[in-house]
């Protein structure tokens, strides 16, 4: 039981860190640029496909990953330049529709280029084993690597936002955009940068997940919805909120799926328990979100404006 708890706990953390990578970009894009981007999940998918394609070309996953990240960044920059910058003075509704259309196009574009079948990627030798973590319990090295990389990125983001000039501009932009612009910062360049960085983070998350879940069309949709839940719980625009909420959602979802039916079994018949558990588990994070919003409508860490 302890082993299972640790195992699922690690799984939950790893899932949470992954959600954070996607959510960080989305919450920054909303917080700084006031743009709601439904194509953000598609950028996660694009990252996954890029990694798969480059791994195929280079013959090595790590090289593929390294190549995929800058291309994901370039993709985000082009997308901002072509479409997103036309949305800054539009209503949220227009933004929703345009990015929804973009998402349809990207999902279908991927289907045209690579087909509907999932594309899987093999792990390099060095990362494919598992190591002991607790007594007899072993855990895959690669999943630990994802966890480590995600935490590293989170730390780097925290450092950038709180300790650099760029971060200062981001924080200023999130609380008063017009003032930052009036003080002589090129706000359009800042926006381009934020959008590109967001696309890169989402792409990085997708690229890292390819060996675990393989790339397929529409894979970004589920992640996008979960990311929405994360940033709503965390408080839209707050990186710290996104981090806490991402780990919370990751843990609640993973632990709920594995321990929900076990806990229910002590309350009701086994058949009934597994059926109820299967029904309740996917809904758990939405119930969590509703409960948190009922108490704090602006999320756990609301951004002051």
């Amino acid at each position, binding site marked *: 039981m302890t082993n299972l708890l640790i195992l699922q706990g690690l799984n939950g953390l790893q899932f949470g860190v992954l959600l954070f990578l996607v959510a960080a970009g989305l919450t920054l894009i*909303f917080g700084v640029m006031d743009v*709601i981007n*439904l194509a953000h999940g598609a950028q996660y998918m694009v990252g996954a496909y890029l990694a798969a394609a480059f791994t195929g070309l280079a013959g090595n996953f790590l090289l593929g990953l390294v190549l995929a990240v800058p291309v994901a960044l370039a993709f985000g920059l082009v997308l901002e330049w072509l*479409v997103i910058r*036309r949305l800054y003075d539009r209503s*949220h*509704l*227009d933004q*929703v*529709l*345009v990015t*929804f*259309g*973009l*998402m*349809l*196009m990207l*999902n*279908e*574009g991927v*289907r*045209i280029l690579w087909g509907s079948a999932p594309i899987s990627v093999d792990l390099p030798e060095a990362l494919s084993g598992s190591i002991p973590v607790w007594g007899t319990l072993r855990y895959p090295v690669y999943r630990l690597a994802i966890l480590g990389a995600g935490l590293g990125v989170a730390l780097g983001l925290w450092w950038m936002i709180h300790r650099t000039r760029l971060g200062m501009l981001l924080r200023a932009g999130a609380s008063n955009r017009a003032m930052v612009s009036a003080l002589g910062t090129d706000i359009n360049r800042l926006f381009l940068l934020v959008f590109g960085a967001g696309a890169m983070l989402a792409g990085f998350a997708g690229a890292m997940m390819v060996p675990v879940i393989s790339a397929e069309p529409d894979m970004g*949709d589920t992640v996008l*919805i979960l990311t*929405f*839940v994360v*940033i*709503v719980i965390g408080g*839209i625009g707050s990186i710290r909120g996104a981090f806490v909420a991402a780990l919370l959602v990751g843990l609640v979802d993973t632990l709920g799926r594995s321990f929900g039916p076990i806990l229910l079994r002590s309350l009701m018949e086994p058949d009934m328990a597994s*059926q109820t558990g*299967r*029904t309740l588990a*996917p*809904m758990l994070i*939405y*119930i969590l*979100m*509703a409960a948190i*919003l*009922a108490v704090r*409508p*602006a999320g756990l860490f609301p951004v002051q404006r």
Partner: protein
Amino acid sequence: MRLSDRAMLVTFAVLLPMPALFSAMGEPFLTVVLTRALIFAIAALSLDLILGFGAMVSFGHAAYLGIGAYAAGILAANGVTGLEVQLPVALAAAGAFALVTGAISLRTRGVHFIMITLAFGQMAYFLMSSLSAYGGDDGMALAGRSTLFGADPFGSSLRFFYVTLALLAGIWALLRAVTRSRFGRVLTGTRENETRMQAIGFSPFGYRLTAYAISGMIASVAGVLLANHAAFVSPSYMGWARSGEMIAMVVLGGMGTLTGPVLGAIAFILSEEALARLTTHWRLPFGAAVVLAVLFTRGGLLGALRGRR
């Protein structure tokens, strides 16, 4: 008479002889397609009440479509095919779901509201996906067509078309009355200026929640029709892509008017059908069309009509 009303009467007049025209053309299947468009017109009308008149951008409206469809599907699977039971159950279930989720969602505004309604929509989607007794992920075939006091309103594609058209006309008239009533004017007032409405003594929450519930209930009627039309019920009816499509129908048609969403839904379903016949990858040009339409037009189809006057 307002432009919107005249455009609507013209639309009804054009729709009325369509099945005869289609069968004369030797394409009776088009009647079935058009019926589907009218079902979505009902759904889009219901969404317009909250989106256009109440400025509540709900991204989970497909959930109500699904609730209606599953009410018909689950009751039919248990041997209850009468619309006299199915419709009240669908309306009650949709109303209850709308009241509970609406009460939570309406504590927030703007982007929060969009994301929360989206999340609740997905919650309903996952709930239905996990109902393995009723098909789960794969959905289930409708056990029997809905009947009305023993009569068979959906028996032929022709009858189905006119029943749907009549329902659409009735719901249009109902919503026209609602939006022009005192209730409707207060709702529109909270859209324009919430603070001012509060200052003159209205509490927007109750009005918004009521509109949200009415909207969900009307969408569930479209859901019952959709289940009969496809003779199939599946969680995909309530997916978030469907909610996005419904928003596109309303906005591209012209939100805040009752004619716009009807035109938008018809244009949307027909172009979807036409593109799908040309290529399996119809979503690519379709997505591009949505992007370009929003970027380069304002006010939707009805706005374009208005602009030419």
